């Protein structure tokens, strides 16, 4: 089981890494925000796997906060987009 979790963690890290490429490349702000969201979701998954692997239950709380605040950040971003109307 532990091996599977480790491999999955690596897979998620890879996914996060691919999101990274899109964040750096862009081209539009919407793309970057979307990719940041993928990084967030992958980060949440990674933290959940790490909480089992490292036997740290507190990392579930971290994942929860990360997920909630990712929603807030998305709201802040779109709120701002709504106002300025450019990107």
């Amino acid at each position, binding site marked *: 089981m532990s091996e599977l979790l480790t491999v999955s963690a690596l*897979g*998620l890290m890879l996914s996060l890494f*691919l999101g990274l490429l899109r964040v750096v490349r862009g081209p539009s702000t*919407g793309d970057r925000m*979307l990719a940041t969201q993928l990084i967030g*979701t992958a980060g949440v*998954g990674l933290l959940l796997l790490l909480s089992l692997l490292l036997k740290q239950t507190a990392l579930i709380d971290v994942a*929860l906060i990360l*997920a909630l605040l990712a929603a807030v950040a998305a709201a802040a971003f779109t709120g701002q987009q709504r106002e300025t109307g450019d990107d």
Partner: protein
Amino acid sequence: MIDAMSSLLIVSGLAFYLAGSIGLLRLPDLYSRLHALTKADNLGLGLLTAGLALHAQDLFVTLKLVLIWLAVLAASAASAHLIAQHARRREKQS
């Protein structure tokens, strides 16, 4: 039995994650990326949390896992909607 179930869920979740991020990289425009990504990462995280929930010691942890999934679901739905709306407005303008 539970281990096998959980492994299956986690691995399929991972597959969706990877599909989503490859889509994000390879698809040609914002719209198609948006659709690929929101489906993939929501499903991916959903399967992953389901897999991990099978290992959860108590109900509270399961509750938190469900909450995490819902939060991500809502965030991506809202932002996808707004990003798309915004992009559409720009297209109309130009």
